[in-house]
């Protein structure tokens, strides 16, 4: 009963209602602009809402999250330039549809099924999260250590063909996260003798540099790449029966999306690709061939990437382990407001969980409304020249990093991280593991050391990884994931296939 009351708070509180609506609308617009990632938008919002109430800030961020992931499909369909990595798969069939004069149909279908996927994701979140949290309440220090390392490893490995670089970035992230005073021992770590570094590196500043400034610099390479917008023909709204035809496939890909999203390290990007692949495999008679404008080819990735958001929130709220860069920022938001994300969060501030669930449902409702009503504006938005856009984003990034502590020094730090991120991108080092490392570094450090202190010598410490069921399972999963990264595994697989 209490849960329902809390769930309804965002619907009844005008302030929250407005913030979710504004967030969703802003998210759709910003997400629709190619090159402006959802991660960047949410990092900016976090820096700007530093002094806000937690629930207000979360409502706005959730709106931007759902809106942003959805908004990217507008650009995929209209100009064949995905608004974000989650929308890459949408352009496979979305753009061909637009070229055939069915842009409005593609936009409508993707809106409706983004909504369906999003709602399914939230339903799974609301049912599974309390269960996971009740299991996770028994987690010990070792389990946290393993989970955090697992998350880092997966994010590192999923970066295409750059496992070693991903692990390096994650390691560097952990070390940057440890800069400053050692909370257990009291000594200074990695401060290079600087007094200013004693309080550590502010991760939001790092975030703005690594995702914001570096992205601006990176986009400067392809300044004159411009998408050509297709024309919108006025067509009637498709009949309900036609829309409902796609419900079964959308339900299937949504379930795939939720679980992919819930895996640490895999987010909307992979969910969308797997969803698209599933549709391609299972839909026997598409209206056109996949890749030439099949309706399912637009529906599947959009339902999957929206559903993945609900999935990504599960490990975040129950274990305190972010699955990807965006949820890492949410962890940061909770930290800022003095909350420790993890199994205790559900017990201590269960209201927060249900308000977030309520806000997510609300965000999806607004997504449906804005997505269906506001269409023609997108043609203009997705073709705004980068020459106009990039300087404006640069200014917002500067304001954002300044506003955290009202300090110009932070802005220089942000610029420094910006150039590091840019160099990393050029040399194909993934940036996300670095950010995750910065955020998870302190957790890994303290859980490792506390686990060691709680055991009797090194042998007992190692034995601790196999002597309780939960830890044993996590250890096995961890070892298999590690092995999966190496060549040994692929060779064995290859041999088995041949044999």
């Amino acid at each position, binding site marked *: 009963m209490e849960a329902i009351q809390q769930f309804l708070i965002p619907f009844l509180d005008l302030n929250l209602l407005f913030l979710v609506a504004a967030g969703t609308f802003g998210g759709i617009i910003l997400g629709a602009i190619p090159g402006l990632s959802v991660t960047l938008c949410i990092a900016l919002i976090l820096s*700007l*809402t530093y*002094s806000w109430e937690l629930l207000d800030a979360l409502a706005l961020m959730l709106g931007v999250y759902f809106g942003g992931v959805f908004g990217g499909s507008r650009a995929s369909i209209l100009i064949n330039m995905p608004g974000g990595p989650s929308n890459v798969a949408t352009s496979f069939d979305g753009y061909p549809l637009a070229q055939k004069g069915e842009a409005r149909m593609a936009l409508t279908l993707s809106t409706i099924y983004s909504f369906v996927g999003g709602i399914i994701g939230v339903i799974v979140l609301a049912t599974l999260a309390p269960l996971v949290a009740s299991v996770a309440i028994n987690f010990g220090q070792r389990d946290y250590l393993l989970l955090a390392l697992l998350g880092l490893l997966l994010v590192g490995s999923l970066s*295409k*063909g*750059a496992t*070693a*670089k991903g692990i*390096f970035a994650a*390691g*560097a992230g*952990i*070390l940057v996260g*440890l800069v400053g005073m*050692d909370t*257990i*021992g009291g*000594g*200074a*770590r*990695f401060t*290079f003798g600087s007094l200013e570094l004693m309080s550590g590196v502010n991760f939001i500043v790092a975030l703005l540099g690594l995702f914001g*400034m570096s992205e601006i*610099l990176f986009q*400067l*390479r392809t*300044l*004159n790449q411009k998408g050509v917008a297709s024309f919108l023909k006025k067509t009637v709204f498709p009949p309900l029966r036609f829309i409902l035809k796609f419900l079964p496939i959308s339900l299937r890909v949504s379930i795939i999306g939720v679980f992919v999203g819930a895996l640490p390290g895999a987010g909307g990007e992979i969910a969308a690709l797997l969803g698209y692949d599933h549709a391609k495999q299972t839909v026997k008679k598409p209206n056109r061939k996949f890749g030439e404008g099949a309706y399912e080819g637009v529906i599947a990735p959009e339902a999957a990437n929206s559903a993945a958001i609900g999935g990504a929130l599960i490990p975040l709220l129950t274990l305190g382990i972010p699955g990807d860069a965006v949820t890492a920022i949410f962890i940061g938001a909770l930290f800022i407001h003095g909350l420790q994300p993890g199994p205790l969060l559900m017990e201590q501030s269960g209201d927060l969980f249900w308000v977030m669930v309520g806000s997510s449902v609300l965000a999806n409702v607004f997504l449906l409304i804005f997505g269906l009503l506001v269409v023609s504006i997108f043609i203009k938005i997705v073709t705004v*020249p*980068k*020459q*106009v856009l*990039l*300087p*404006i984003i*640069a*200014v*917002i990034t*500067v*304001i954002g990093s*300044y*506003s955290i502590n*009202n300090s*110009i020094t932070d*802005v*220089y730090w942000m*610029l420094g991280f910006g*150039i590091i991120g*840019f160099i990393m*991108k*050029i*040399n*194909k*080092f993934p940036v996300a593991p670095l950010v995750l490392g910065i955020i998870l570094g302190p957790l*890994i*450090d303290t859980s*490792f*050391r506390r686990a*060691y202190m709680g055991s009797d010598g090194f042998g007992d*410490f190692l034995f601790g990884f196999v002597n309780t069921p939960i830890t044993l399972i996590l250890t096995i999963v961890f070892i298999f994931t590690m092995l999966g990264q190496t060549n040994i595994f692929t060779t064995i697989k290859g041999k088995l296939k041949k044999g």
Partner: protein
Amino acid sequence: MQTLKAMAPGLTMIIVGLVFLSQTFVMERASLFDPAGGSFLPALITIVMIITGVIVIIQDQVKKKAKTSMMETTAEENLENEAQHADGAEDIQMTWKQYAFIFIYFVLTILYVLSISILPFSVATCLFLIISMIYLRGVSWKTNILVSIGSVIVFYLVFTRLFHIIFP
């Protein structure tokens, strides 16, 4: 020279790892050989980082060899696939001109941040936007001025009213 260039990412990784490793030796109130201490885990991580650096060097060498042998056999075919690696990831190729272009813009941003401390925020921002759009080209004078002044007004209203940010 070619070999050195191919090894650059891996070498940088090793150097970064070594710099961090050297810092773990000088940590106060921490013993390197006590896992519960403050420097054991960081040292372990730096070692892993150095190993990944070595792996990257080896991988790059193998790739380079594969590339040269491919060039010998199918020179024409290779031309088409030049931007593609064996693993399918696209190579990011940039000219010196592009580097310079980006670097100058970065310096421009630094100058903007410097100017915030001297000029009023709105003036500095407006100037930065106008100069940016001139530098990046392709925007007409009219749009440039309109967008710059418009954005400064919007920034001011949104950030002071909605986000309660105090500008420098």
